């Protein structure tokens, strides 16, 4: 679904991503993790077409990403940014309908029946049906996160990118979000999710990619990707006998 090879990205003359290669296939739920400043968000932005790559190739469904127009690309890849401003007090279903912008740039009330059904289904998957009709800015942080998830799920794109979707969510909502993503991957979507919670990543994801200073350190099944060596050298932590993580050294 997505193939990245030799991706390099610089921002303000600083190399943020350095020679990154990986693949992401349909049906996979893959975590992208690493310490702060490792370049995780920048990788996602490059895949979403928001940040330009300095060099390297991104392939989407076998076609170079640069061959896609903005609309065609949005039909392939949907992205949930780390910061999610909503400028106006839009109502919930209109925010979710924006997920289908590339299919039909209309508000919910003007979508066709197919578009409306996609929005309704996405709202149900994200457990946000009861929020329909409410104003976005009146929602709690957790409710807003669910609406954003629904917006992503309403997209026609087979590939979903999520940047720290669990931030500001309580533990129950984190688990339910990861369950939703796992179920979505099971339908054949390719999902790449930036996570800081290594235990959450290990529990739900097929694979974990670990970044440090813009380079890939590990890309493997969770237990192998998060080896004692990686934990110590990348994250500066170690596992205690009871399984918890503590600072190394």
């Amino acid at each position: 679904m997505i193939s990245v090879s030799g991706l390099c990205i610089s921002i303000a003359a600083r190399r943020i991503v350095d020679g990154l290669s990986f693949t992401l296939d349909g049906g996979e739920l893959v975590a992208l993790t690493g310490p702060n400043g490792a370049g995780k968000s920048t990788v996602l932005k490059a895949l979403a077409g928001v940040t330009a790559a300095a060099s390297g190739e991104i392939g989407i469904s076998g076609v170079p990403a640069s061959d896609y127009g903005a609309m065609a690309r949005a039909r392939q890849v949907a992205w949930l940014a780390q910061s999610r401003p909503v400028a106006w007090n839009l109502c919930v279903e209109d925010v979710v309908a924006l997920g289908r912008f590339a299919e039909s740039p209309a508000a919910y009330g003007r979508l066709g029946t197919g578009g409306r059904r996609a929005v309704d289904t996405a709202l149900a998957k994200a457990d946000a049906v009861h929020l329909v009709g409410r104003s976005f800015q009146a929602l709690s942080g957790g409710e807003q996160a669910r609406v954003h998830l629904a917006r992503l799920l309403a997209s026609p794109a087979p590939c979903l990118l999520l940047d720290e979707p669990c931030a500001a969510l309580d533990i129950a909502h984190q688990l339910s979000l990861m369950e939703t993503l796992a179920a979505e991957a099971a339908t054949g979507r390719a999902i790449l999710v930036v996570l800081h919670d290594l235990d959450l990543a290990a529990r739900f994801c097929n694979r974990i990619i670990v970044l440090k200073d813009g380079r890939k350190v590990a890309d493997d099944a969770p237990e192998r990707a998060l080896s004692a060596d990686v934990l110590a050298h990348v994250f500066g932590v170690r596992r205690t006998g009871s399984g918890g993580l503590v600072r190394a050294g």
Partner: protein
Amino acid sequence: MSRLTLMLTGIAVVLFAVSALAGTAPLSLADCLSALAGQGGDAARVIVWEIRLPRAAAAFGVGVALGLAGAALQGLLQNPLAEPGVLGVSAFAALGAVIAIFFGLAGVSGLVVPLAAILGAGLATLVLVAATLRGASSVTLLLIGIGLSSFAGALVSLAMNLAPNPYSLADLVNWMMGSVANRSWADIVLAAPAWGIGTALVLLAGPGLRALSLGEDTAISLGADIRRTRLLVIGGTSLLAGASVATAGAIGFVGIVAPHLVRPFVRHDPQRLLVPSALLAGVILLAADILIRVLPFQQELKLGVAAALVGGPVFIWIAARLGRASA
């Protein structure tokens, strides 16, 4: 057409009829009505058709253009306080018009003044968008707008000082305060193409403005062509504000007040906001102009002054509420 749009259109039609009846000339209701129907005395016909109705059309057209420009700029900059007047766009348009008039370029062609005003408006809009691209916050933008307004005001006075033609303080006041008194159909015909094209450009930007609600990066990832949206709004608002200033001088605040009032009725959707905001702003200026005509003052109040009298406090109220929300 939504119910809101229909209702506003109806109110506008009624106000047009009322404006044919309102004025200082001593015409009876029957005189006005028969003149409106194209009958009755010549004097009454001229007063109704050549003085009152063009003036009403100018007030409505300027209002529509400023309301639309305000709603579009607010969507583009994601800022409910954006508006041609507040951001200095109107002041720059006035500067363009004043330069064209006072340096004798207006004689070349009737199109020079509107074009100069549109150019001035475009220049100020470009500065604002450049600031937005460099990450300017809402507050910074408003400060830049204040700077642009004062700067343009100073340049207008300077242009008048340097102008080879005689000038009067009244001219300066006319351009900076705004008025639609004594406008003719010729003025409307001159502004109409710019208003028409500007409206079309801004309406084309509608879907992009809705996508921009989620921030620029997300809008791009949704497939919206943000550069196109930005160009459409810059071009559209420059035409709308420029032609309005060329017609009536700089009239502030109506472009803020109208979208603010409409927003709850269109579910805060920046695209659906456009048309009703335009109509409401047209209705507000038309009503204000009628009020001005019947107020028993020695000298007629300027339309821009009336708009600021109502709009200024509303602006402060919105700003104060925004401050509370972000605190």
